[in-house]
């Protein structure tokens, strides 16, 4: 099964609902994770852990860069690239 951007966004919304304990809907590609959604370094990691479960993402902690966590778009790029590497392996 290959996931597209919409799948990742939907999974992010579900994960953020849980992590932030408030409804998060209508994410756009430009939505900024720190400034707009007010994620902090703790909730950012919690979101990642949720997505590991829901998307089957398996991140390598040494590959994680600050730039990937800037916006919904940059994070989606990162998640899709990780999933692709994993499927290819």
């Amino acid at each position, binding site marked *: 099964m290959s996931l597209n951007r919409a799948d990742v966004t939907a999974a992010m919304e579900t994960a953020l609902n*849980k*992590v932030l*304990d408030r409804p998060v809907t209508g994410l756009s590609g430009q939505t900024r994770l*720190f400034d707009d959604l007010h994620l*902090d*370094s*703790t*909730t*950012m*990691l*919690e979101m*990642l*852990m949720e997505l590991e479960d829901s998307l089957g993402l398996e*991140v*390598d*902690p*040494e*590959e*994680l*860069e*600050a730039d*990937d*966590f*800037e916006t919904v778009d940059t994070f989606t790029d990162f998640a899709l690239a990780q999933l692709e590497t994993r499927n290819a392996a």
Partner: protein
Amino acid sequence: MPQHPTLHSLLDETAAAHQDRCAMSTASDSITYKNLAQASRHAAHLLRAHGVQRGDRVVISSPDAITVAVAVHAASRAGAMFSVLHEDVRDSPLQHVLQDCEPAVIVTDDPGVSATAQAHDVQVLTSQELRHAPAPREGSHLPNPPLGVDGACLIYTSGTTSLPKAVVSTHQQVLFAAQAIQDCLAYRADDIVYSPLPLSFDYGLYQMFLTFLAGAQLRVGHVAEVGPPLLRALQDSKATVLAAVPSVSDRLAWLVRRAKNKPALRLLTNTGAALSEKTIADLREAIPTLRVQLMYGLTECKRATIMPPDGDLQRPGSSGKALPGTEVFTIDDDGKRLPAGEVGQFVVRGSHVMAGYWRRPEMTAERFHRRDGLFPELRTGDYGWMDDEGYLYFSGRRDDLYKERGFRVSATEVEAAARRVEGVDSAAVLPPGPKTGHTAVLAVVTELDGPEVLARMQGLIEDYKIPRRCVPVPHLPTNHNGKVDRQALTNLIHDPAHA
């Protein structure tokens, strides 16, 4: 005469010894000791040109650690007291600070902060103006430099009931505290000290002074890199020391467990709250070179006690011994000194006890008590006991203590017991109050259900200390200091989903 009478003389001496060594770096920038000393010298003349006189205040609101370092040392040279604010201090909290300390100048690039400052007739300098201030005329010296007994900084701390108040420290007090901490931690000249907290926290600010005492390099983390990218940031920066708080260590433990290459850390320090034993054990297992030093303190004296390296293995639950040349003991409610082993309020004495609260004489007299009307001793408001050998055991803040079923209970102690339950990741107690139905509520992050957690706590602490209600929650909301936000937690557990 102390070795470094003022903050800027510490920088100047380190700069003389280590000219071109990197003093400080961020993800995108760095500065050498020589350049930092020079930039702050030029910036001091700029501050004086903007009317900043000895004894005035300079507020600094910048996310850029190097700008903060230049501004701090410029203020010191000009004899002004600096106060570093978190960038999130804006609007009415910022207005409170501006009205409270009436700064002559604020250093900021933030349009909102600038607008608030200008509305209060405070002059604004940008980070560019400050960092690239013109060189003064050859041979011109700033007249009227500060003494070691002059105020050096104001650190705003939030109270539980009142508006934030500033702890005032003199140069000597800051330098005594920093030197005593360095005597315990022994940072080395070849260390790269990673601070995940910005310099607006006193823990971050003191990392700068500790680093300068050692002639080492301070790497200040940005909020975006201390979450999931933390491991990568530690590796890329080649950090050898991590000045952590519990939430940072918990994240690092999760990250290193699944990483192939481990960071080359030799020392991890902890303050802010108790670090879970599980996190320490996980980190030790993953990073064999790592030694851990637990600490306890409060802004009013910066640091009260520090554990020897890995001292927690011999004395679990202790936060270490008083800093060299200082003492910590407990007193009862009448102020009488208690013997070892008895629970009371911690009192700290030594040259690191700060001057007091800015323009708060009553609060200062209460907290910075003077025995026999003369000799300062800090009444911390924290409770616990000292053992025969002078090791401190923290049991709770005064506002962490509550009464239930007639017993005095420490929320900190209950939380520690809950965290020892297998399967519990973190825990926080909401003391009894109108919003909790007048019974204590234990909130836990766990896969278990509430009653099971309570059942497994039996034997870990006295039965009467175990709360009657336990609510699993997805996470514990935290504030900027990484401490549990009890207000947000109260709202969270009253969410209908958890009722």
